[in-house]
Structure formats: structure tokens, C-alpha cells
């Protein structure tokens, strides 16, 4: 097991390296730069700025400087948010995105698996159809519609919850963004669970368990669930990575100070270092979550373990 983990972590390094290199050069293809945005600048001022940020150096040299700094943890200053380094910005914003993403993931996972299981157990009943319709609605309505609608109902009309912001960090600020973020994923988990649970319930060992007279709850939770969860766990890795690194849309709608928007804002503002920083972060998250998911796989399905 340990050897497996170490081997995977070792292979993560060249992956990261390739991702960073491709992103670095791809970013530079966009015309314009970080400094002539709101108003065009006089040439002398531009020269000053380019020199200060070493953007007047040949591209290959900028690349080498960037890589050698990055391995030491220095991801450079943000060109747009000049009072902060990229590491500082991401460091400040990441906890918010992660907390929001964690709760959204919890809601999506627990809610989705529960609803999917119920639908599978009551297959083809009215309950099944209504749950699956809800799932369809959840995936089709975009979160930039769900978010403002929830805000309109709960914050403006009923004045029960805040319309946005992080406030003092109490749960009431998290509730609406969490729901808006989780809903599409909840729908996906529900569908996945229903499908694989139906299949699992028809397996031989389930028939045997039932024949033994085991109570239905044990049959479903202890025996059928393990097999049914495999597709859910596969989807878990990209889902978790996406939720934890923040959704640009939800964070914009609810003005959460997370990092989700940095990726988009950074690209629009040509903030090269900020985009690179978020790219590295997302790549790390995806690699780590894929590793975790593979380990969970091994726990759930003994057949995988002995490969």
C-alpha cells in the first residue's frame, strides 16, 4: 500500500511540470497584457512597469525564473492585486473555498446517495419518478439561476438568510451558496447511485443474503452499498476537486472571498502569475483526490486490491 502511494506521488511531479509548462506558454498567447486594462498607458510608464515585473525579459528566461521560484514556494507577485503575492492570495482565499466546498460535497454526497438508494429500492414507483425528475431539474437548471432565486426568496422576501458575503463565518452565510453549489452534483450522485444500486440489488450474493433472511437494512447498507458505490466514488475525485477549489459562479453570486474567481478573473486580467498559481493548485487537488479515490476503491472492492 505504501509503495503504491509513493509511486503515485512520484508520478505526480512530472505531471505537474507538464501542466505548468503548457499553461505558462498558453497564457502568453492571449493579446494584451496585465497593464493596459482600464486605460491605456503612456509608453514610458509601460516600460517602467514591464521592467519592474521582468516582463521585458525573453520568454524562456521568464519561464526558467518562474520554475526555479515556484519549486521554492514563491509563485510571484500578483500583477493585478499588487499588494499581495500569489501565495498570499491563494492562502487567504483557499480556506473559504474549501469550507464551502466541503459542506457542499457533504450535502451532495449524502443527499444524492440517500435519494438514489430510496429511488432504487422503490424502483418505478411514483417516488422513484419524482426523485429522478428532481435530479434532472438539478442538473439542467444552472447555478446562476438557482443562486439568485434562492436569494430572492430567502434573503429579500423572507429576510431569513443573508444575501451574500461570508460575514462572521457562521453557518447561515454558508447555507444558500452551499445549496446552489451542491444541487447539480447531488443530482448526479442520485442518478449514479440509483443505477448502480439497482444493478447491485440483482447480484447473486444479494439474493443469497436475502435467502438467509437477513433484515433488508443490512442487505442494502452492508452488502449492496459497497458495490453500488463504486461509480459514485469514481465521480467523487473530479467532483471534490472542483467543489473544493471553488466555483467561480457561486462565489461571484454570493460574494464569497474564495479562490474560484481568481482563475477566471486572472485570465481576463492577464494576471499571469495568479492564473499559474491557481492552475498548480487545481492540478495538485486533482492528483491528490484521484489518489484518495483509488485508495477508497481498494477498500470498497477487494478485487482491486490485489492488482
Amino acid at each position, binding site marked *: 500500500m505504501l509503495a503504491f502511494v509513493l509511486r503515485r506521488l512520484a508520478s505526480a511531479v512530472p505531471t505537474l511540470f507538464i501542466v505548468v509548462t503548457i499553461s505558462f506558454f498558453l497564457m502568453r498567447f492571449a*493579446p494584451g497584457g496585465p497593464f493596459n*486594462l482600464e486605460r491605456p498607458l503612456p509608453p514610458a510608464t509601460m516600460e*517602467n512597469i514591464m521592467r*519592474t515585473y521582468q516582463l521585458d525579459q525573453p520568454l524562456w528566461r521568464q519561464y526558467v525564473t518562474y520554475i526555479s521560484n515556484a519549486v521554492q514556494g514563491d509563485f510571484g507577485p500578483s500583477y493585478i492585486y*499588487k499588494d499581495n503575492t500569489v501565495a498570499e492570495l491563494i492562502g487567504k482565499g483557499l480556506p*473559504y473555498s474549501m469550507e464551502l466546498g466541503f459542506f457542499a460535497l457533504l450535502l451532495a454526497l449524502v443527499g444524492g446517495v440517500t435519494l438514489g438508494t430510496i429511488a432504487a429500492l422503490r424502483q418505478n414507483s411514483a417516488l422513484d419518478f419524482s426523485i429522478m425528475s428532481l435530479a434532472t431539474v438539478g442538473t439542467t437548471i444552472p447555478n446562476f439561476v438557482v443562486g439568485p432565486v434562492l436569494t430572492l426568496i430567502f434573503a429579500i422576501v423572507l*429576510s431569513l438568510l443573508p444575501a*451574500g458575503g461570508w460575514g462572521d463565518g457562521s453557518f447561515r452565510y454558508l447555507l444558500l451558496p452551499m445549496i446552489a453549489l451542491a444541487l447539480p452534483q447531488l443530482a448526479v450522485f442520485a442518478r449514479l447511485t440509483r443505477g448502480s444500486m439497482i444493478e447491485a440489488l440483482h447480484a447473486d450474493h444479494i439474493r443469497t443474503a436475502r435467502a438467509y433472511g437477513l433484515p433488508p437494512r443490512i442487505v442494502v447498507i452492508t452488502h449492496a452499498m459497497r458495490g453500488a458505490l463504486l461509480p459514485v466514488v469514481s465521480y467523487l475525485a473530479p467532483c471534490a476537486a472542483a467543489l473544493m477549489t471553488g466555483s467561480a459562479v457561486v462565489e461571484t453570486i454570493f460574494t464569497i472571498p474564495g479562490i474560484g474567481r481568481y482563475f477566471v478573473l486572472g485570465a481576463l486580467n492577464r494576471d499571469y502569475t495568479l492564473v499559474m498559481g491557481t492552475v498548480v493548485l487545481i492540478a495538485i487537488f486533482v492528483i491528490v483526490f484521484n489518489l484518495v479515490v483509488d485508495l477508497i476503491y481498494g477498500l470498497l472492492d477487494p478485487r482491486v486490491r490485489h492488482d
Partner: protein
Amino acid sequence: MSSRLLKLSAAALLGSVLFASAPAFAEAVLHRGNAGEPQTLDQAQTSINIEAFILKDLYEGLTIYDAAGKIIPGAAESWTLSDDGVTYTFKLRENAKWSDGTPVTAQDFEFSFKRVEDPKTAAKYANILYPIKNAEAINNGKAEVATLGVKAVDDKTFQITLERPTPFFLELLAHQTALPVSKASVEKNGADFVKPGVMVSNGAFKLVSHVPNDSLVVEKNENHWDAANTKLDKVIFYPIDDQAASVRRFEAKEMDLVFNFSADQIERLRGAYKDQVHVSPTLATYYYAFDSSQAPYDDVRVRNALSMAVDRDFLAKEIYSGSQIPAYSLVPPGIASYGEPSKASFAEMSQLDREDKALELMKEAGYGEGGKPLEIEIRYNTNPNHERVATAVADMWKNTFNAKVTMTNLDVSSHYAYLQEGGKFNVARAGWVADYADAENFLALNLSTNKTFNYGKYNNPEFDALMQKSYAEENPEARSKLLHEAEALLSRDQPVAPLLTQADLWLVSNRVSGWEDNAANEHLSRFLSVSE
């Protein structure tokens, strides 16, 4: 999941929702929407107006704007101008202090101005202080920083020597780049001087906390010379760049002020909030530039015809819901020293008459129906309103001249980069917001020597000569006359077609008093107060 767990989580959820209780503050807090996250809190690096709002509450320049948008003494209590008009001597207030109790001195201002012009600082608005002797040379690396025309005569007397008489210089001193920094703080803390807990400020407020993209909190600065008259204890700036989110938070009564929202919301918001919706014309012009180096836009008749055929009332009413006003001059109204701008000759005609005249001119030039076909490309920066304007104008030109019009849009960075680098175009959308309240700021865009902002490459020696004379003219009336003559040339030649005068859209809650709309869009929190 077991039903008991379900019940427990439902209870926990409900409990946390009900747990919410707003603690009652005895202090007066203004919740101020600020339309975006500041890119920096360093006055030498600042470039956008949302930073200006924050910085002007934290720091105080030699001059400031009052609530009505007029220049009044700030950190300087009085000043004198020498007979030759190039030397200002400012007397700083005796009781002016930084938030840490140390006195505000002339040395602070000397240090701050030199820092702005130092090429190593790479200040984006260094050109604001170019009227100061040697400033431009220093900023271009051609002179030593020590030669800047500023001197601390003593702790409370500050002298500025200009290159030439500059009538609008006092307006420049109220710009956010001219705000002072504490020399001691910058020398001790380096780049960290902007951080909360470290920053010392000489304005009505001091920085308490800053969570990027969430909030920026400032508290009353008890060491400010006018602290007794500042009624607010705290101001919280909300850096929300999503306009819809800002409006929602205003409607949920979480914010008292919102700066800029989508114009299509005006009708609805006016219906619900009546006079809390402010549409305030400002010193900003929306215009279409013609590339005078490309045929047929090198022909003054073609430019005039195209400009005349645009129905500006339609644009203002239908696209901007009245949040922008038709403009027939590059310089917007509302500049005290300039008065009414010199409008185009067709300003008073009806739109039908304009279109007739336009057709005549176009025929004369040999284009349009019966002449050479017109193929026009409109460039604009990606934005839903700019797209609507371009579509409407394309339609107007199609209907009037049977022109074939295409549209190209790029994001704002690329759009301006293209124009600034001298790219060829037919018609390009541009906007200009005044850096200071003087007509020169708009007219200078068309100087043939202005390689950066003269996108259309307009080259008129008569215009250049008038502008040159205006810089040397000391008498304000004579100067205003020269500028009007220069503007008249622009209105005659239409190197750019001014379309609209922009307005700032504000939502100002009924809780707030002391608010005055003004064209300079200056709203210092120290002149505001809130009621419970």
C-alpha cells in the same frame, strides 16, 4: 442514512438558521458597496476609481473635494501662487496628524511626490504630476529624482514649482495619486506599509481589516484634524464586482450604497426605491473614433455623415434607459471653469434633418447609394451595452447609407492594446473618464503628439497650436476661449464622434444623509452619516 440521523441533521440545520441574531451596534456604520476589489492600496500604484474611494477616505491630499464636488483645502489650510504663476506655497495645518499621532509634515509630501515620479516605482498615474518641474524627465529616466520641483521649506511649509503655469493644478492635487504617504512608515515597513495594523493614514479613517473579495473595514481616525465633525464610526467597503449581487444585497438591506449597477435595472429599481436611485451625469464621454489614416475615414464629410446618422436619443433612452445623455461634444458639461462645451453644428437639428444632411455629405464624398459601397467594421470591448450600441449604430448606417457593417469585439485589455499600439481600424468604440475636472483632459486626446490616446491619428496643426497657446495662457477666461476654439475644430472635423455623456449609477439608501450628486463623482465618507 438512518431516520434518526436525518432528524438530527434537520434539527441542526434549522437551529443554525434560527441562531442568527444581528447584534445591535451603538456605533454608526456605513455599509458601502464598492464595485470591485482594489488592486492596491498604495497611492503610487493606484489606477482605478474604486481604489480612489477607499484611499480618499484613508488619506487626505493638499486639496480635497467637498460633498458637492468642489475643491476645498485638505491637508493644506491655505496657499499662495507666485506672480509668474509657477510656484505654489502651501501652508499645512498645524494640527494635522497621522493616525499614529505623529505630525503630517511637508517632508511627507516631498517624499510622496518624489516616490510617485521615481521610475522604479512604476506608477501608472505618474503623469498626473507631470506639470511639476522635471517630473516627466525624471519619470522617463532622464533626470535625477532629487531634481523634482518640490521642496519642504520647513515642517509645515511645502513649495511646488511647475514647468509652466497650470490653471488646473489644484484639481490634480486632489487626485488619489497625489495623496501623501508617511515617510517614516514607508521607510520602516517597505511594501508592507499598506497592510492593516501597519498603515498610518492622515485622512478621516484608518484601516482596520482587509479580507480580499469580502470586505475592507475602516474606522474613524481620532487623530484627524476634523475628527469632531466626522459622524461615522466605521465604514465597511464591500468589493463586489458582480452588479446583480450588489443590487440583491442592497435590496436585502445589507448595504447602504451601491456604485454602478446594470442600466436595465433603472426602471424596476426606480419603481421600488424611487429617489434612492441616483443617475448622476459625470465627466465621462462615450465616443466612436474614426481612423483618419484609412480611406474613406480620412474624408471629413464621411466622418460627419456617419456621426450625424447616429440617433443618440435612441441610444440614451432605449439602450441605457436614460442613464446616459446624448453628447454632441467631446468635453462633457459640468466643468465649472469651462461651462457649455462647443457642440457640433448638427446638435440642434432634428434627427430626420441630420439624416438628410448626412446623405447629402456622403453623396458628395462619393460613397453610399449610387457611389462606392461602404463597408465598415466597428470595434468595441466586450460588454453587453457596447454590443447593443454597436448593433444599433450598425443598423442606423445600414438604413441610411446601405452600408455593410461588421462588428468585432475583444476584451477590454486586448481592445485598448490594439488601439494603443496603432492598429488600423475603421471605427472603434472608446470611453474617456476625466482624470481631473478640466476640458484640457479631453481635448488633449486629439493632439497629434499624443501617440497613446489619439487612436484615430488626427493631425491638425491649427488644433495643436491652439492647445499649445492654452497651456501658456494665465488668464482663465482667455484660456477657456482658446479651449473652446480648439473644441470647435474637433466638432467641425469629427475625428471622433461623441455619442453619450456617461452617468454614474448609485443606489443611496434612505438611511444615508449628506449625499450630493456631483459630476466629479467624489463622495468622501466623512461628509456622510447614517440614521438607524
